[in-house]
């Protein structure tokens, strides 16, 4: 009888322990939202919009920024071999003086850790050639050129002081060939137990002072000229970087 009681206690304890483990495991793998924070920067510092605070990378003139927008798309996250592909992943990062940082919340991410994240600056060819509304794509928004050309991938607008005058700066970069695919691997996987967001720096100055140094007085606008657009695309490939916090 005593032996039977002991067996019962062991059996019940085992069951309870198993339930706790299963519950905890289930909790840890249950899809949870993941917040991505994109912080607009200029030369590694938070952007000051609407003031002539920046020097032309290829000259000496001062310029200001009014609007800075970037389409990112096709976000994929990985925890080792497990890969999560975000559906309808088209996100417009909008920065201006009232929004120096922009949050993207991915609703259901079933990963315990994040060891790798990939995304594109720009939009895949199929979506760029479509007028379908999905994600943040909207053919009636300010990023749409028109249905023949598709979307602007990166938009920077502002003004530069030249010879006592204030001149416009307009950089609208699109075209399928200018999509840039980014892939970031964490040195240490980010544990999601504390619902930590992932933070990224988006440095506007890298658009003008990367592999190609841009003199804004010589290149005040980039729109339809494909070689000019390619120059900026080469630079903006380095514009977004994760801040892993480790």
């Amino acid at each position: 009888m005593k032996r039977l009681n002991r067996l019962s206690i062991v059996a019940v304890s085992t069951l309870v322990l198993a339930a706790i483990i299963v519950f905890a495991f289930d909790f840890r793998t249950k899809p949870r939202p993941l917040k991505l924070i994109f912080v607009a920067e200029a030369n590694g510092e938070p952007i000051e919009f609407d003031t002539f605070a920046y020097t032309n990378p290829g000259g000496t003139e001062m310029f200001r920024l009014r609007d800075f927008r970037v389409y990112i798309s096709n976000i994929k996250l990985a925890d080792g071999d497990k890969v999560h592909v975000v559906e309808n992943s088209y996100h417009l990062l909008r920065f201006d003086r009232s929004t120096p940082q922009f949050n993207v919340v991915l609703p259901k991410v079933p990963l315990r850790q994040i060891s790798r994240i990939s995304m594109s600056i720009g939009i895949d060819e199929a979506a760029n050639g479509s007028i379908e509304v999905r994600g943040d794509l909207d053919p009636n928004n300010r990023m749409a050129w028109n249905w023949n050309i598709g979307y602007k991938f990166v938009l920077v607008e502002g003004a530069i002081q030249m010879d006592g005058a204030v001149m416009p700066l307009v950089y609208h970069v699109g075209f399928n060939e200018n999509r840039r695919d980014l892939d970031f691997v964490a040195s240490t996987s980010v544990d999601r137990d504390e619902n930590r967001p992932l933070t990224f720096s988006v440095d506007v100055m890298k658009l003008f002072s990367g592999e190609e140094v841009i003199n804004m007085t010589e290149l005040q606008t980039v729109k339809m000229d494909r070689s000019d657009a390619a120059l900026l695309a080469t630079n903006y490939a380095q514009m977004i970087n994760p801040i892993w916090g480790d």
Partner: protein
Amino acid sequence: MSKGFLAQGSFTTTEKRQNIKMKLGIAGLCLAIFIALLSAFWISRSPPVPTAIADFKAPFVFGRFSIPEDNPLTEEAFQLGRRLFYDPMLSGDNSMSCATCHQQERAFTDGQPVALGHGGKELAFNSMSLANLLWGPRRFFWDGRSPTLEHQALQPLINPDEMQQPLDELVRELKSAPEYPEMFWKAYGEVSEENVARALATFMRMLISANSKYDRYLRGELRLSPQEEHGRKLFMAHPDVKVSLRGGNCIDCHSQFVTAGFSDGWDGFINNGLDAEQNLGRGLEAVTGDILDRGKFKTPTLRNIAVTGPYMHDGRFATLSEVLTHYNSGIQFSDTLSPLILEADNTVVDPIAAHGLGLAPKEVDAIIAFLHTLTDEAFLTEPKFSSPFEEETQ
């Protein structure tokens, strides 16, 4: 003996039970009748369920829209809103209705440079068209001072320069009018300020213009004339002399399908170079308090633009030709001028020398021809949008 007692006792118990059952039955019946009467009374006092507008379809190319959860689109609300829109009872002295300044044949504008308020007083702004309000900027009035159509709907009523109508007085009038109590009952349940706003907003939301020549072109039903097609291409292009692309730059502010301003944030508010710095109106600054918004006004829809003159927030241009002349050669510089307007030029690379698009007369004519394809005769004559009072007198 005992058996007899028992038998008698047993009989008495059965009789009592039957008695109790009968009483319970009567009580139950009374309760059921009471509940039925109460329900009938309650039902008779509950407003009927309004009829959702079933055949409401939005053009695919217009994109997303949203309806407030507390004001769904219903037939009853639409009919009520339509009647209120055309009823001069909505003004203090019963002399003006919404339709005084928003006339259907003019795409719900009035043909005046600025709206004329009570006693013919000139107001600050031109009367805006009411087409396709489900899309475009989500703020209303030229300076964006209303965050919802429900809020917007009451502002002209209570403005002392416009309709001079105290809302409590209006509710009293509506309650004593023969038709309104039942119409409100069916649509919302009761006559109230909020429900006046809701009904007017519903009517305005349903004013959808999507059957112009341009719409039929988009649906593949017809071709534009060569001049209209030339104008369409210019409309859709930002000029770029570097690649010999000529453009009217319209699309930088007016979206390609809706043709209104953009809906995100304040994207639909632009300083389009009407005035130099010293003469700049406040515009959006009056709402945000931010000097960097000075001179920015709401980008209006271009649907039916050929019949909605005069143009601009203050009606300063009488014709489309004058509007195009402004964009072509009359741009005034100020600190908040849109960089896209300042930069857009078809003739020179150096914007210092530019005051506009620099289009040739033929190109200007082509854009105007395209703008005429946005006129939607079906919208301008749609009986559902017309005055119900005229229907009643026919």
